[in-house]
């Protein structure tokens, strides 16, 4: 399968009467966007804001971060099974707006975390401080249940991102990159001497605020399955997850999955990147057992030599991670896992909830309990309610000078477990 990605660099965003992209600048009509978002009767109002790198702005609580993309050639549309009809994506041509994102924010539940600081020490920990963010804060109608609100905001974000992506459809990309992978047989013939490698991608799948969708299917209902590496680039996997800010994968991370991209870089050179396997992280233990059996089985059926396994979220996914690792290693397939740690504020606690000697090659995205002081910023988009009161709290979370003492677990993407950032620990 072959996908040509065209990258259009966005240098700034401005509100305007007409939506368009000109000379790398995105003009957004908030009226048009608002009308689109409020098509959903569960939403009462929406407000828009722009946060640029370096500005004294804090966005919280963040729900999702999405990169606007548009399908230019080939089957299907972006976010298949969600806002485009179900069709296999990942081939043809897709444009992405680089350097920006749509950020959805809003207090879906009373305890939501998720901070993006555009400047200061907090900005170092979130990858999204480097983007120009179009932030939408959605307000629900009264008496709405959290799961309805979550769904409305989730869909609103995708619609907005698709709307903006559509503006780029007739543009000429600043940069083009072609990604191509082979079928099983072709790949074996073409790269007979290269080790066969796959990516086992664990998706959070446990209920409200903890779900991920694959082609619109709730991931807790899937059996582990295979994707072409390019499918995620068209939004085949999206986030419905907004708990555990530091180590959940926003949709942006699924679209730009770094393991997929870094394996594609090596494809045909040092490895044969065979496929992208998705599996879930369910609450029910028999599901964990079955899913890890299946990933190991798929890896074996594909005659793999090596696998990278990534995790999402805190606690019980450690069990899935270790089960996957152990069972895949038991098939004689070399495994590297990516995780993050909860080693306590002092760094002295047991980092993972599970462990095994088979996990002898671990990449860590750092200790999520590490404390950081976030200075007071000039502007807050959203609300500081929860962060100042409770999350990772201590006596002096909100300090006298207005700064916040928090654990980095409240920062969106700080310890991302698909290896999206450079933070680590020893």
């Amino acid at each position: 399968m072959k996908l040509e990605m065209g990258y259009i660099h966005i240098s700034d965003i401005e509100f305007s009467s007409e939506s368009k992209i000109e000379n790398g600048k995105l003009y957004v009509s908030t009226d048009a966007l608002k009308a689109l978002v409020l098509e959903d009767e569960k939403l009462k109002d929406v407000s828009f804001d722009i946060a640029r790198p370096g500005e004294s702005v804090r966005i919280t609580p963040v729900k999702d971060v999405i990169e606007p993309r548009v399908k230019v050639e080939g089957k299907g549309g972006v976010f298949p099974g969600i806002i485009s009809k179900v069709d296999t994506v990942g081939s043809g041509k897709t444009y992405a707006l680089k350097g920006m994102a749509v950020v959805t924010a809003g207090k879906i539940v009373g305890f939501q975390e998720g901070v993006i600081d555009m400047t200061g020490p907090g900005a170092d920990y979130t990858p999204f401080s480097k983007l120009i963010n179009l932030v939408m804060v959605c307000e629900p109608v009264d008496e709405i249940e959290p799961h309805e609100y979550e769904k409305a905001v989730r869909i609103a974000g995708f619609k907005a991102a698709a709307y903006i992506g559509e503006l780029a459809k007739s543009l000429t990309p600043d940069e083009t990159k072609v990604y191509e992978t082979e079928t099983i047989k072709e790949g074996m013939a073409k790269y007979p001497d290269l080790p066969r490698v796959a990516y086992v991608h664990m998706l959070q799948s446990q209920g409200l605020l903890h779900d991920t969708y694959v082609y619109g299917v709730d991931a807790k209902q899937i059996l582990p399955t295979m994707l072409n590496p390019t499918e995620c680039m068209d939004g085949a996997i999206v986030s419905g997850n907004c708990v555990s800010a530091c180590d959940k994968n926003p949709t942006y991370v699924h679209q730009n999955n770094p393991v997929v991209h870094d394996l594609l870089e090596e494809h045909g050179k040092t490895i044969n990147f065979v496929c992208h396997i998705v599996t879930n992280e369910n609450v029910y233990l028999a599901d964990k057992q079955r899913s890890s059996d299946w990933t190991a089985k798929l890896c074996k059926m594909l005659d793999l030599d090596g696998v990278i396994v990534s995790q999402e979220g805190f606690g019980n996914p450690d069990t899935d991670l270790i089960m996957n690792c152990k069972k895949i290693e038991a098939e004689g397939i070399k495994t590297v896992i990516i995780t993050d740690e909860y080693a306590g504020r002092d760094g002295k606690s047991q980092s993972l909830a599970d462990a095994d000697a088979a996990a002898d090659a671990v990449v860590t995205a750092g200790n999520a309990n590490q404390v950081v002081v976030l200075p007071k910023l000039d502007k807050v988009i959203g609300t500081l309610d929860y962060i100042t009161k409770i999350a990772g709290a201590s006596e002096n979370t909100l300090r006298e000078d207005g700064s916040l003492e928090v654990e980095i677990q409240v920062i969106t993407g700080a310890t991302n477990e698909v290896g999206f950032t450079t933070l680590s620990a020893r």
Partner: protein
Amino acid sequence: MSKIKVVHYINQFFANIGGEEKADYPAEKRPGEVVGPGMAFNAAFGDEAEIIGTIVCGDTYFNENVDKATADILEMVKEMQPDLFIAGPAFNAGRYGVACGTIASAVQEKLGIPSLTGMYVENPGVDMYASKVYMVSTKNSAAGMRDAVKKMAPLALKLAKGEAIGASCEEGYIPNGVRVNFFEEERGSKRAVDMLLKKLAGKAYTTEYPMPAFDRVAPNPAVKDLSKAKIALVTSGGIVPKGNPDHIESSSASKFGEYDITGVTDLTADTYETAHGGYDPVYANADADRVLPVDVMRDLEKEGVIGELHNKYYATVGNGTAVASAKAYAAEIAKRLIADGVDAVILTST
């Protein structure tokens, strides 16, 4: 600003006194002297710090007189009032490494003076002290002196100034069980791909999070004649005399209990209970024999099936106790059991 004052500890070999034949050299204070590797440290410190005195001690002397040597050296350090204490580096010299670890952690703990040592990662001193005092990883012989000083001097200065210490791989110290965040050059996914390529090629790679290690110990020979054997009871189920006289904590306990059961033939609800917070205490509190079978052992002793039930039993709280301290308790318990002539142990766990 005045220079940071440093006291340096070395063995007889590095003090040019002699090799193994001089290893019984007792601890000696040399105020104002800079000896052997101290010269290299002084050069590396530049204007920031200087060695104000050196303590020399033979390795055999130190290890055969640990308590006295430690006390004497602590006194010497105290008199010189340094801001920083450096021991070694000891490279792969086992007894020197143990001495450096012992004295550096003692100075830090007892005198509150920041301390640093350095040694080869396989030196037995590492296992014993890496979690207690910063220890720079050195090469396995004195040929690595220049490299060792290059890593130790800047870390020593940071410690003396009370600056934040980075992750082990940044600062060059041996991992001490404390996880520290830092930013890598490459993102995690790229590091994972690189690690996988190495693993696939059978090349060496370093995991970023080592799983807790576990080793095995070969079984000891069986007891030949039970009827002459002295058997001891040990439990990780936290059985203590009623009222928990030693105040053993219910989890992450900072001590173990040693209790005399001379004349005790049965544990009852009135006399014994559990201090363990990791399981439902109802059953053990009603009858602690359910965890520590003293009643049955007394019967077997009386019937001559076993020679003797040891008159002391040992109790720990398995729950949440750090592996390192659990190991230390167990080693101490084993030492006492052997000293008391015990032949075999029944260990019960909850």
